[in-house]
């Protein structure tokens, strides 16, 4: 142990060894902070999704849930609650109204919150701790306006109730979801007495379940095979959640950032390791002369590297933990989403990757020691012997690929990054070699710094290509991240502009349309167009009936089995982009289908699509496919018909309104004037979303700075590796009588040219790759920011020139004789 510490301390004196350590710290900080953060955010999102769902999973049926299923849930020790939802008429002194009734059992909701307001105190919102008492009902805001809460009686079927509280927010159809009929919630024990549920009733029976994810998964595995055709198993999955759009992008971005940071830090490690071995090959040759065996040299170094990787990873973990904790605080404050505690899995990953990274960059070099002959020590050119091992490159590349796939947890993202970086590296290398070769042929002798710089670049074409390739790949990573980052912010800006609608008005009947529009303008609010809503179901494609049972995908089955909202529009709605075909021209009749739905059901342009609207069957050709941004707080549709196509179909209207003054007053006013209209207040959701987007921008920006740190480390690593060669050159120039000023100019010029070249190629490739990422991972409409390229070229040229000069500045001031003594 004592010997180990002594050797370790000796190694610590080497700049390259310290650089290796710093790069490894960066690797572990990157993995710790972003893995833990994205893990917690993802778990938080899962919890939020469960909250929206009201449960972690549920069994849904069109008949009462069978006792076997309830017993099975008890065996798995899961929390359970039941609900029955159906549409009925609520009788009140003011008349009858269509309502969405939900009867619930104790424990409802298992996840999330039910927000209530008391009749006595309109300003007090409180979270429900129980369910409605027997013979009492809770009602949605728009009903509460017309009913005298706590006093008047209402009837549902054969039973009369006293509505006593107002529902402000509920799971299973919270503020963001559109429900046509206002909610009435009752106690399950009263359901039978209403006489509303008969075997012929159209009702949805739900067994709601909560437990840890393993329990839920195990129950799902057991119950799924036993389900009848009228039953289905549904898990609250973030992939189907409406929060995915926002936070999912942040997580994807963070993963991309961490991936690129790790790649850059591993490259910096590889560079530092190469530099280290150039220095240490002297030592190795000498040790061989003194009689030390190959095996014992390898073992000795391996121990030093591997054991030192552990405390280094630990330092990274501490920094990473602090960083992610700060990020978590920001998100918690901004979004109100409580994030769960840390899991230890990322820590194991950090240790594993740190040791693997150390092994990947040093082991191939250690193994190449076989090539260090002790005779080399007599010839003073040991440094050239090591570092040509192709295995080293292979080792690092393999590690990067492994890390990419582990960290990204998204094969497509990891694939794009790995393939993108490989192509970028290869392309950069080839193009640079070609350009350098061409420069060597074209340049004419002149006594200018540019000539000498070009001469130096082409005379050392391999060194120059390697330098520019390393810088170029770094620029590639940074610009890619910057481009995506900028577009991410822009997408947020676009999705929640300051004038975003904050109230949805639904269930507007055709005769009320004009009156409502008048009322809205009287109240000083701004409205989007009225969208007609027609409920329909897809029944045929190209004349062939679609049988849901023949479809393999469950989402596809669901889309065919269930009615959904159709509309007819003359203009392409905001936040919709045509991806195939074209929007309806005048007098053209056809369908425009959302692209994911089209993909799900195999619908293509020109297909004849048949739709059933309450018995009315309609057929038309598909004329366009659309990409839809769902997170824009505006009405969006899977299928849109051309104007007049749905004529005669029963419809109601929907619109979104931007209310600048008191929203509650506006909603009350509308509800009083139009009792059938449901108003949904989105303001709280919007404020939360804006705050989250703002804070997430900060977190993303911080991660970008982190990647920048990794990039600078690569730059320092490359320059450090060049130092001994540059020392030789500068010593020679000085000995031959070159002035300091001239050498400085030549150095600046050479590095600026290399930097500019790397910037142009790396930046150009990054902008092109951003295109692919924006489309495939982040779902943006991408506008290539070509002006970035110019800035990148100038920026990289300046940065590389200054850093290159700074790394050699001290050598310029040293007397030639002293420089020669160092050789």
């Amino acid at each position, binding site marked *: 142990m004592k*010997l180990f510490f002594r050797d370790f301390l*000796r*190694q610590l*004196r*080497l700049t390259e060894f310290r650089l290796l350590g710093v790069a490894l710290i960066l690797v572990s900080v990157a993995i710790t902070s972003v893995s833990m953060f994205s893990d917690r955010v993802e778990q938080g999102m899962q919890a939020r999704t469960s909250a929206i769902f009201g449960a972690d999973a549920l069994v849904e049926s069109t008949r009462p849930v069978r006792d076997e299923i309830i017993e099975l849930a008890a065996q798995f020790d899961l929390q359970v609650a039941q609900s029955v939802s159906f549409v009925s008429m609520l009788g009140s002194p003011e008349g009858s109204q269509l309502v969405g009734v939900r009867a619930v059992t104790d424990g409802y909701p298992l996840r999330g919150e039910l927000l209530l307001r008391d009749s006595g105190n309109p300003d007090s919102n409180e979270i429900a701790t129980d369910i409605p008492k027997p013979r009492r009902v809770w009602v949605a805001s728009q009903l509460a306006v017309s009913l005298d809460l706590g006093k008047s009686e209402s009837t549902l079927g054969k039973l009369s109730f006293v509505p006593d509280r107002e529902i402000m927010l509920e799971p299973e159809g919270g503020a963001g979801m559109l429900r046509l009929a206002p909610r009435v919630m009752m106690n399950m024990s009263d359901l039978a007495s209403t006489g509303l549920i008969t075997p012929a009733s159209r009702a949805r029976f739900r067994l709601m379940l909560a437990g840890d994810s393993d329990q839920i998964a195990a129950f799902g595995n057991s119950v799924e095979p036993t389900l009848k055709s009228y039953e289905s198993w549904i898990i609250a999955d973030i992939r189907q959640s409406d929060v995915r759009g926002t936070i999912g992008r942040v997580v994807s971005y963070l993963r991309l950032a961490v991936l690129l940071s790790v790649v850059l830090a591993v490259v910096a490690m590889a560079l530092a390791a190469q530099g280290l071995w150039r*220095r240490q090959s*002297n*030592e190795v040759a*000498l*040790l*061989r*002369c*003194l*009689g*030390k*065996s*190959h*095996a014992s040299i390898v073992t000795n170094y391996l121990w030093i590297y591997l054991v030192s990787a552990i405390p280094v990873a630990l330092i990274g973990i501490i920094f990473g933990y602090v960083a992610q904790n700060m990020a978590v605080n920001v998100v918690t404050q901004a979004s109100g989403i409580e994030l769960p505690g840390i899991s230890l899995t990322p820590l194991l990953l950090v240790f594993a990757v740190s040791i693997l990274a150390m092994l990947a960059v040093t082991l191939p070099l250690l193994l190449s020691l076989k090539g260090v*002959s*002790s*005779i080399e*020590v*007599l*010839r*003073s050119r040991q440094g050239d012997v090591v570092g040509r091992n192709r295995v080293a490159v292979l080792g690092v590349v393999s590690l990067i690929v492994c890390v990419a796939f582990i960290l990204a947890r998204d094969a497509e993202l990891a694939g794009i990054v790995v393939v993108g970086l490989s192509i970028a590296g290869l392309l950069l290398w080839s193009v640079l070699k070609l350009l350098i070769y061409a420069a060597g042929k074209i340049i004419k002798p002149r006594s200018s710094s540019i000539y000498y710089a070009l001469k130096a670049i082409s005379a050392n074409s391999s060194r120059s290509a390697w330098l520019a390739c390393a810088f170029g790949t770094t620029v590639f990573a940074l610009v890619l991240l910057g481009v995506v980052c900028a577009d991410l912010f822009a997408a947020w800006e676009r999705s929640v502009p300051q004038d975003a609608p904050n109230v949805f008005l639904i269930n507007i009947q055709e005769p009320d349309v004009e009156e409502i529009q008048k009322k809205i303008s009287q109240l000083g609010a701004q409205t989007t167009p009225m969208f007609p809503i027609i409920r329909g179901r897809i029944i045929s494609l190209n004349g062939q009936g679609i049988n849901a049972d023949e479809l393999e995908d469950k989402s596809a089955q669901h889309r065919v089995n269930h009615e959904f909202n159709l509309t007819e529009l003359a203009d392409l709605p905001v936040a919709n982009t045509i991806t195939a075909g074209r929007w309806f021209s005048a007098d053209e009749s056809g369908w425009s289908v959302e692209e994911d739905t089209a993909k799900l059901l195999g619908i293509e342009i020109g297909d004849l699509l048949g739709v059933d609207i309450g018995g009315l069957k309609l057929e038309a050709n598909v004329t366009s496919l659309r990409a839809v941004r769902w997170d824009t707080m505006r009405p969006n549709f899977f299928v849109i018909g051309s104007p007049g196509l749905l004529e005669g179909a029963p419809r109601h209207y929907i619109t979104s309104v931007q209310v600048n003054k008191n929203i509650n007053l506006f909603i009350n006013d509308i509800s009083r004037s139009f009792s059938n209209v449901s108003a949904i207040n989105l303001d709280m959701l919007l404020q939360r979303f804006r705050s989250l987007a703002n804070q997430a921008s900060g977190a993303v920006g911080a991660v970008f700075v982190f990647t920048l740190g990794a990039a600078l480390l690569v730059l320092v690593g490359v320059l450090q590796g060049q130092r001994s060669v540059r020392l030789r050159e500068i010593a020679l120039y000085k000995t031959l009588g070159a002035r300091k000023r001239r050498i400085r100019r030549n150095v600046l010029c050479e590095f600026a040219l290399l930097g500019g070249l790397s910037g142009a190629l790396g930046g150009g490739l990054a902008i092109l790759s951003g295109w692919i990422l924006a489309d495939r991972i982040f779902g943006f409409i991408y506008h290539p920011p070509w002006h970035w390229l110019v800035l990148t070229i100038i920026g990289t040229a300046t940065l590389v020139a200054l850093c290159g000069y700074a790394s050699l500045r001290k050598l310029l001031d040293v007397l030639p004789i002293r420089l020669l*003594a*160092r050789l």
Partner: protein
Amino acid sequence: MGNSNAAGLVLQASNVSKRVNLGDQTIHILTDVSLSIEAQQSVAIVGSSGSGKTTLLGLLAGLDSPSSGAIDLLGSSLESLDEDERAALRNGKVGFVFQSFHLLPNLTALENVQLALEVVHRSENITERALSALDKVGLSERGNHLPSQLSGGEQQRVALARAIVIGPSLLFADEPTGNLDHGTRDQVCDLLFSLCNEIGCTLVLVTHDSDLASRCDRIFRLDGGRLVS
């Protein structure tokens, strides 16, 4: 395995040749060199630049393998040994002094000397023994200095201390005074011979310096890769 064979020879080379292929061309660096060196002798290998002196030294020390011929070092035939076995043979018995010193820049003078003891696993009193070796070359006060803080002569004296600290039977020196000025050169030469005498080791040195060569018991002269005298 003894330190010398029955005749008192510590080193014997028979018809040693070294060839290097550069593309289609074969360069003959050494041709049919035969020599033998007895224990505790001092031997100089001289010759003009490119005559193959350093290559011969490397071959004799087992740092490289000949293209043909046989070398017997400290009673062991080198041709039957691989590089690791040759390293094990040198371990603790062979010392080296190089023209460009080859001190490790990140280690102090004392640590550079200690390194030789560590390699041969003599970890007892390591500091005292290293300090004693430095004392013998007159540098015990400079033990904590890095090579970059020492002059050329001082660096070579540290290298000498590193070579003798293990008490070698055989000391190889490659142009030990080649990088030194006149005054320093004499100082290092005196030290080299006196220390070799003190520990009773055989000295094989390669040099251009006729004064240095003349102080040795025997001189081998190389010309164009052949031993001429």
